[in-house]
């Protein structure tokens, strides 16, 4: 559905998007994740044909958006950042104007307007003046507008900002439901959002894609080696020695004295981090050692990474470099 080939967008002062290439298949829900200023909005604008790339090419449904801009636009529903609207218009008026603008034939206009109003929960405000609506309604109206011409591709820039938790859930479900028929590309800085909706996530930083995969795989990649944290009271050197011999353990790291001050009973409480092969669970073996040696053991846990960790790791490290 989307094919981006070596796209760079340079502004007078900075490079917003640097040599990005990717493909999005029909029916996929893809998220672009990144800190503020990572180039997400610029990329969305490039996809939506608002901006032209400095270098490289963008194809929507096989059409070069630069050469066949109008044909490409007919296939795209675009929700810009901040969902701009005309505050002096009424909801119905606005939708009708946008429907006309998007070339929906007169007979189908009413019908389409009703459909998107129901879909986005706008029925009870259809006669209201946009400027008087809450932010949440405004965003839903902009979303309704982006859907009105039944686009094949939906480009959403920060669709959830300004919505309350109930509305977020509603929009999430709506996107999920649409995702069966429509390709969805969304930019967000909310990890929970990306994790909940997207089948594939691109993490962006400084105008580049630094990682791309499904949320689960991204988490897996970061973990690489699984690690286990254990808190054991025993002579540290000996404990390290013993643990190292457990099969599947790659590294043993003495993290330091026990985290809490509860270890008054024994001065030997220490916290250890064990790096181990993925796919092996060494916890029973660690427990066995502790039991046979008579060392008290009070914590034994697998460290679980979340998308947030991946995000912070990737964006922070690239940021420094």
């Amino acid at each position, binding site marked *: 559905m989307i094919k981006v080939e070596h796209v760079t967008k340079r502004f007078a002062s900075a490079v917003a998007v640097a040599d990005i290439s990717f493909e999005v298949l029909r029916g996929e829900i893809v998220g672009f994740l990144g800190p503020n200023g990572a180039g997400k909005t610029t990329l969305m604008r490039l996809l939506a044909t*608002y901006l032209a790339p400095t270098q490289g090419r963008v194809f929507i449904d096989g059409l070069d958006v630069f050469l066949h801009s109008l044909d490409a636009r007919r296939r795209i529903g675009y929700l810009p950042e901040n969902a701009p609207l005309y505050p002096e218009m009424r909801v119905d008026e606005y939708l009708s104007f946008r429907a006309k603008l998007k070339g929906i034939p007169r007979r189908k206009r009413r019908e389409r307007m009703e459909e998107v109003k129901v879909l986005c929960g706008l029925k009870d405000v259809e006669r209201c003046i946009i400027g008087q609506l809450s932010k949440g309604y405004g965003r839903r109206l902009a979303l309704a507008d982006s859907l009105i011409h039944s686009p094949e591709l939906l480009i959403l820039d920060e669709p959830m900002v300004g919505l309350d938790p109930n509305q977020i859930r509603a929009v999430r479900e709506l996107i999920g439901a649409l995702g069966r028929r429509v390709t969805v590309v969304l930019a967000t800085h909310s990890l929970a959002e990306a994790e909940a909706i997207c089948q594939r996530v691109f993490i962006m930083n400084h105008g580049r894609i630094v990682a791309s995969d499904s949320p689960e795989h991204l988490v897996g990649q970061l973990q690489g080696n699984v690690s286990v944290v254990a808190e054991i009271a025993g002579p540290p050197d000996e404990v390290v020695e013993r643990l190292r011999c457990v099969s599947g353990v790659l590294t043993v790291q003495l993290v330091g004295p026990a985290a809490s001050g509860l270890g008054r009973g024994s001065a030997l409480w220490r916290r250890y981090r064990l790096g181990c092969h993925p796919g092996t669970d060494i916890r029973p073996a660690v427990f066995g050692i502790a039991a046979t040696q008579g060392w008290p053991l009070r914590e034994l846990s697998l460290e679980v990474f979340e998308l947030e960790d991946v995000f912070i790791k990737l964006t922070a490290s690239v940021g420094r470099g």
Partner: protein
Amino acid sequence: MAYVIMVAFLVVAGLSFCRPLGQHLGEQIGIGELLFGAPYFWVAVLAVIALITMPLFAEERRTGTLEMLLTAPVTDLQVVLGKYAGALVFFLLMTTPTAAYFILLKAVAPGMAALDWTPIFTGYLSLWLIGSCFIAIGMFVSALTRSQVVAAVGCFVAVSILFFMDTVRLVLPGAAVQAALTYLSSTQHVQDFAQGVVDTRPIVFYLSLTVFFVFATVKAIEARQWK
């Protein structure tokens, strides 16, 4: 806001029509010059054009709706022409009620020597020609900025210079320069038209300027892609 501008304009136009009427009571004066020869009237026209055109693109740029507009399946030219047509129609609607002055004058003073309609028509022709040209200029200025105030001031300055070009003549030396400026000055054109003299040169001048600035606006809008 549109109604406010319209009413304000008609008040100023009405006053400027009454003034010479009172002054020249009992004298001979070209009927067209009553309205179209009054500088107050033209200052009001220029101000109103600045007000009509200032939000056209500046406001959309500021609020971000321009992005919605330009990603819809319409060309930049269509957007520009649509905006231009909207402003022009408003301008025509706003200026036509002034025709009532002449009709009223005729009704109130039936004794007046046969009212000559020709200079009135040519006066309107000059008003609409200059209006359509200056609206294009105002639209272009509006497309360059995201501030409505900057757009309004920029437009007002630009069209005032163009309109009162023969005043600029007074401070610039050189006979050739002065002649050229007089030739370009709208005040000169207006006076000719108000006397019922139709010259095709100013018509071509204004129409070509209009086309040029509509084209320049399209380019200014397209420039977002290259910046």
